[in-house]
Structure formats: C-alpha cells, structure tokens
C-alpha cells in the first residue's frame, strides 16, 4: 500500500501558515496554491523540481481559501475569508487582478468555474451560493443568489459537461442546482451524511458524485434520469440522486477533500489524520452498487491535517497534496498489481 504512492518532492508553499487548497491548470503544467498567508502561489517545473513562478499578493486582506482556473487556463479565481473573490488574468508569468467580486456577507469558502467558461459559482459562510455570469468583455454579473442551505456552505463544484452545480454544507447535505427560466433553482438535496460535508467531486462521466464528510465517510451518489430502468422514482423531469456506495471505516478523522481522477477514475482523499488514501472501483462491481477498494494508504503524508488532494489533469498518477503544515507535496501513484 505504501509503495503505491511515492513522494516526488515537497515545497514549503506557505511558510508559517496553512496551505488550504491546490488547483492544476487545464494544461497540467502549473499548480496554484493558496493559504493563510493571504497569498496565491503558482508552481511550475524546472527540471525535476517544482519552483514558485509567481506570487499573487495584494489581492486579499485575509486567508485565501480556494483557487480555481478557468477552462481556458487564462484566468484564476481566488476565494477569500475577506468576503471577496478575485479574478486574476494570466499574462505569461504575471497575473493581474482584473475584477473583485463582492456581495457575500462573510468568508467566501469556495469558487468554481463552469466547463463552458461563462459561469462562475461562489459559496460562503453566509449560507448562500451565488452564480455569476461573465460576458465577452470580462464583466461579471450576479445572476442568482441561492439561499437553500441552512448553514455555512463549504464547497461548490460544477458538473463536467452539463450546466449543473453542486454544493456541500455544514448542514450535512449536498444540494444540486440547475437553471430554470432564467433563474437558478435547487432541485435536489442529498441527505445521508451525519456531519459537515466538506468537499465534492464528479466522476469523469458526470453520472456520479463523490462527497466526503466530517462523519469520516465518503459517499458515492448516482444520477437517475426520469424513466430509468432501475425504477428509481423521480419528481417531474428532474433527475434523482441516490447514494450507491458508502466508504466507511477507512478514515480515522474528518475527510477534508476528495478528488476523482478524470483520466483513470481513481479516488483520492485528504484526511485530518495526516494521511492520503486512494481508492479504485472494482471493475466487476455492479454499476448500481459499486464497490471500491483501498489501493494506497500513506500515513504521515504531512505533519498535520491534509486539506486538499488534486490529480494532474494530463499526467496519469501525478497527485498533489497540501496541508495545515504549509507544505505542498507531489506524489506518483501506481495502481498495485492484482487489483
């Protein structure tokens, strides 16, 4: 298990601070990290090592909690505890803050770009999820403020191919949103977790959603369209989501992040017990009741809580992780034999 995940290198990304989140650019050549030092750093390779190519400072007054690249790779969004979201435009190695999105009442916890590149979602401790539209002139307009959650919203993520948004909250639920007649509505609430849901990840096909929680489980949810063969009830024309798998007993603390590799389908988790784990779906398992096996478990991956894991979108097996210890680590994952 230990050999399936090999350390390639570490960088002290946010010294004397926490590193909260990582995002690979769509080309897989750059890694953005953000942290409690209020900065965003961009990392790239130089030979065998990872070096800091840019530092985005002067953008935020408080911790930067999440970063997200636009699908074209030319823009980076940063969500901060200072209640704003900055949009940075990339010009070779330089990044310039072109817009600051304001409106949330307190800490912005997450930001995500839709695959079309025209929509952006943010969520906050103020319990709301905001959807923003960006036009050809780089003007951002808020098109919806969704107050469906009853507590702090921790994470938002877009479906890989449809204009569908998912959010995770301290209220133990996951909610799904879609556009209906020029307005966004919450059309499904996924209940099952027994505590805060910290993060979400869609599988490459977008048919399944993984959620991870403070209840130390990962749940896999599957989408069922109306008139599906399995007889899962749907209300009207909205799809239904059902929990088809629960991974429990593997993590000894809160699971802060889950990442679904878009190349291989492997699932990585970031845990409060300082470990990184990787799961793979058993190829012979029933799609309606999939089973996942633990294929890598690296205790002490970091010296403190692991906050984020991110698969490189182009290079198979390349995984980045970051922690409360301020470090970013790079790993090579090899699926073990006999799986």
């Amino acid at each position, binding site marked *: 298990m230990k050999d399936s995940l090999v350390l390639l290198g570490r960088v002290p990304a946010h010294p004397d601070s926490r590193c909260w989140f990582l995002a690979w650019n769509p080309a897989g050549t750059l890694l953005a990290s953000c942290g409690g030092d209020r900065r965003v750093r961009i990392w790239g390779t130089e030979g065998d090592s990872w070096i800091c190519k840019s530092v985005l400072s002067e953008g935020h007054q408080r911790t930067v909690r999440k970063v997200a690249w636009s699908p074209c790779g030319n823009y980076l969004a940063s969500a901060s505890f200072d209640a704003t979201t900055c949009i940075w435009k990339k010009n070779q190695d330089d990044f310039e803050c072109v817009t600051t999105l*304001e409106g949330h009442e307190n800490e912005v916890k997450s930001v995500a770009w839709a695959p079309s590149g025209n929509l952006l979602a943010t969520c906050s401790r103020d319990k709301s999820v905001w959807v923003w539209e960006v036009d050809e002139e780089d*003007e951002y307009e808020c098109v919806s403020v969704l107050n469906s959650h009853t507590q702090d919203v921790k994470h938002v993520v877009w479906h890989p191919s449809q204009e569908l948004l998912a959010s995770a909250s301290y209220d133990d639920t996951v909610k799904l949103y879609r556009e209906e007649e020029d307005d966004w509505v919450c059309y499904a609430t996924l209940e099952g977790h027994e505590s805060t849901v910290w993060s979400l990840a869609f599988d490459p096909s977008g048919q399944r959603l993984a959620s991870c929680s403070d209840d130390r489980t990962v749940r896999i949810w599957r989408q069922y369209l109306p008139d599906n063969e399995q007889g899962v009830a749907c209300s009207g024309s909205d799809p239904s989501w059902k929990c088809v798998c629960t991974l429990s007993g593997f993590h000894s603390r809160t699971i802060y992040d889950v990442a679904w590799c878009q190349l291989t389908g492997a699932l990585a988790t970031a845990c409060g017990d300082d470990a990184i784990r990787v799961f793979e779906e058993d190829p012979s398992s029933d799609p309606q009741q999939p089973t996942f096996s633990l294929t890598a478990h690296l205790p002490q991956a970091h010296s403190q809580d692991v906050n984020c894991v991110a698969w490189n979108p182009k290079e198979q097996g390349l995984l980045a992780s970051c922690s409360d210890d301020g470090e970013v680590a790079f790993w090579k994952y090899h699926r073990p034999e006999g799986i």
Partner: protein
Amino acid sequence: MAGSQDMFDAIVMADERFHGEGYQEGYEEGNSLGIIEGRQYGTLHGAKIGSEIGCYQGFASAWRCLLHSCATEKDSKKMKALESLIGMIQKFPYDDPTYDKLHEDLDKIRGKFKQVYTKSCR
C-alpha cells in the same frame, strides 16, 4: 354510614383534590398569559418581516422607475430581475403565518434582492 364515608373521603382526598384544582387554575392562567406573550412575539416578528419586505419593495419600485427610461441590454436584464422581485413580493401571503413555505419564499425574496442589489462588477 354513607354520609360519614363521604366526609372521610373528602378529608383523605383533600390533598389530591387541591393539587388538581391548583393545576387546573395554573394551566388556564398560563394558557392566557402564553397567548398574550405569543401575540406580542408574533406582532414583533411579523413587523420585522413586513419591514424587511417593505424595504425591498420600496427599493425595487424606485429602481423600476429609474430604469424605465434606459434601454441598454444590461438594463433590460436588471429590469427583468426587478420585475421578478416585485412579483415575488406581491405574491407573498402576508395574512397567512401558517403558510408552509413562508421561510422558503422569504429566503428566495432575500436572494433575489441581493442579486439585484449587487452591481455588475468590472
């Protein structure tokens, strides 16, 4: 014989009887005090909601007048959102506190107001 039994019965059961009567009196008094307190709370809470929505309605009406003359595409989008907000406010059931979607609709109105209020960012 029956008479003396009733007399002892009254004495022996006195404690329980007074307890029961006391409880009944207290219950009724508590009930009416509760109704008074509930009414006060309801008045306060209802007024808060009314005041909040009134504020949104005033804001939306003023902006509708201001935008009436403008004709850019951006303004027509804003107008649409404003009309939507005004519509939601008008549909809100002010005289039915038992309406089951009261808080859900209130949250939708708040969300719509925030969206309209947030200026386009550049």
